[in-house]
């Protein structure tokens, strides 16, 4: 059980990532919360209209996934992406988000 405070201490050491990376973690946690709220709402109220539920849920998942992808690409420790400039990664991220949200808005009904 002493594993937990050890983990916490290690995590604190890791937390001062270069500022952007740290924000990612909270960004992702926030989306996770949003997703859970939607699922609970659906479980309580019922799944009509289904397309709105689907688009809401998938938008949460989608942006979370894209954020993870961006983080993978921007992380300097990641040797596979040395030759990809972070600006390019960010531009791709914006494009992908654009497409995702266009589709979501169309599907929202």
């Amino acid at each position, binding site marked *: 059980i002493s594993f937990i405070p050890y983990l916490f201490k290690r995590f604190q050491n890791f937390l001062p990532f270069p500022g952007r990376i740290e924000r990612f973690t909270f960004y992702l946690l926030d989306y996770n919360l949003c997703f859970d709220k939607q699922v609970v709402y659906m479980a309580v109220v019922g799944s009509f209209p289904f397309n709105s539920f689907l688009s809401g849920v998938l938008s949460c998942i*989608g942006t979370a996934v*894209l954020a993870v*992808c961006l983080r*993978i690409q921007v992380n300097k420790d990641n040797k596979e992406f040395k030759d990809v400039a972070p600006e390019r990664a960010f531009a*791709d991220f914006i*494009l*992908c988000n654009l497409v995702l949200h266009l589709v979501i808005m169309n599907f929202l009904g």
Partner: protein
Amino acid sequence: MASPESTINGPTKAAGADSKSLRNAFGGVIAFIILVLIGVLAFSIRLFSVIKYESVIHEFDPYFNYRVTQFLSKNGIYDFWNWFDDRTWYPLGRVIGGTVYPGLTLTAGTIWKVVNSLNIPLSVETVCVFTAPIFSAFASWAAYLLTKEVKGPGAGLTAAALLAMVPSYISRSVAGSYDNEAVAIFALVFTFYLYIKTLNTGSLFYATLNALAYFYMVCSWGGYTFIINLIPMHVLLCIVTGRYSSRLYIAYAPLVVLGTLLAALVPVVGFNAVLTSEHFASFLVFIIIHVVALAYYIKGILSPKMFKVAVTLVVSVGLAVCCAVIAILIAVVASSPTKGWSGRSLTLLDPTYASKYIPIIASVSEHQPPTWPSYFMDINVLAFLVPAGIIACFMPLSDSSSFVILYIVTSVYFSGVMVRLMLVLAPAACILSGIALSEAFNVLTRSIKFQLPGIAGNSTSEENGSSSVVAPSDVSKTEKTEEVAKEKPVKKNRKKEKENVEKKPTPSKTERRLLVLPLEASVIAVLLLVLLGAFYVVHCVWAAAEAYSAPSIVLTSQSNDGGLHVFDDFREAYSWLSHNTDVDDKVASWWDYGYQTTAMANRTVLVDNNTWNNTHIATVGTAMSSPEKQAWEIFHSLDVKYVLVVFGGLVGYPSDDINKFLWMVRIGGGEFPHIKEPDYLRDGQYRIDAQATPTMLNCLMYKLSYFRFVETDGKGFDRVRRTEIGKKHFKLTHFEEVFTTHHWMVRIYKLKPPRNRIRGKTKKSKSSVRRSVSSKRDVKGKRNPWH
């Protein structure tokens, strides 16, 4: 050519670099020219039917697509989305907007609109006829891109050339075959190309493009489920074989989310994108890849000892949660009778399913398993180049080559289930054969080059029966096919390997020796391979010209004096219908001819090729199998005015309704138990000669096909069944013949109006299962026996 630079390394390296770049550019131009030529080849090999017959739409399904495109071009896209078609499946109608895959029609409609706005006056029919060849040229270019990502540009060009000509693809994309697959195969190969590109580069840009290409595929064809199951399988394979990387995550995760959303946008798919079992694999692997990604991430953060503790903790918790989720999933899925899969997908998984439960799916000739000769007919030489390609993919094995191997294995299995899916096998076979041929040429030409006098080489020549490929010197980076893709012409590849050989005269443990074949053997082998290619080309052109270019709406045969005799009976019948009947008249026929009737004759039909309502088709089948009076009653209750029958006995046309009769009996008998198949069989066979059963000789199909047939040659000899017919002289009591085409191939009958005066009392029906009707009768006699 080489400008001398004052570098430390001297001018030789600069000259080498310049000549390399010049060779690069030269190779690039040649590759471009070859690609243009391949596109022209793909387009022109499909034009045989236009040259031999005319620019007409073939077969049955394309007529429906043509009609939908006509509607789209006339009324615009909003009306198209909301179109409810009341001229088919009378009286049910059909929601076109929600049941048709819009990709093909939207593509052709867009092309037509763009071309017409440029003031080139192409009609809708011309655009429809030529859409397929254009998109097959695009498909071969997409195959070039895909194979270039896997192995290199040489393999890419070979694969593109093979795909341009492969007969299986020609058969479904010939000019005039305006069907979904024409566009869908291009979308399939392009989606796979973008997936591999994302896998190789790890860029989100290509991931977005991949999702959009997948959307286009979903719009085009029901076979998109193949993509959404193959890619998760490949991801799983990569994870299991230890090839997980963050590029895999970027390639897969956005595709699933965006792809599901986009698939749900298409009305045909709708919520099936999340509810049917065909998509569950993608979600499952989505969860799995997240778990694996998390595991790798935590492994990177923690020390090994702590990681083990964390792993045991997480695994125990995770397993409990997993079991709960899987239990719920299984309960949900098992509660539906088909376990959540659609009928056609179940047929793919269990090939005997359709024949047991859904005779309609079993009756379509495209859904039968293929025979061995059809493999050789359809992919010819590629059939034995594919195993060589599989071996070539294993050295070196990268993510992309493992994907191609998985693709070929699954498509070979599915093509063994249904003939129609040989089409999915074709691109895979071409890719792998392209790889095999390119590697073979690599080795052979390298052998020749090394052994020509004047070229220094430390390579040892060994007797070697099989060809093998040398691994690049940096074996650790074999996964990075980016490097292979960056080297443009094949010549440069060989030059680099030769330099490697010269630099490392003693082969290291991780590097193979450069194997070279003797000079004469290499020359002969090159010649033989070229000959093989020549045979392939000859076969493909023959297949395109003779086997696959027949528009089944027009038939030809050689007449006695060597001329071509044309049987244009179908169009004759449809034009008769459109000129001599009222617009609102309903025509009943077997479902094969529904699309053509609505498109060409412009009359309402009862059932058509969409076959979505089994009961309605069974009603028509029952009517065709019943005696005249019952058939008249069934048709009268459905407001039918004309009945159309296809009869091939006079000319020997084998696909007529009497040959399809067994399906009418089976499908009708599946829904209405009073139709029993043994009633029509004599010794287990359907016969129409004197040995036929009385039920058979009395049924509507027999009577409508053979009415007055004996007048043609006095004996009533049926050329298809090769016997004389059983009942020769009979009269029709409830139908009257209104039109028979020139060669007696299509016969149209009209329902006689009900009698005004009934002689005698009303009789009870003699058939065994019928309910007794009340004695009161309407004057008009519109009794509906089905209520």
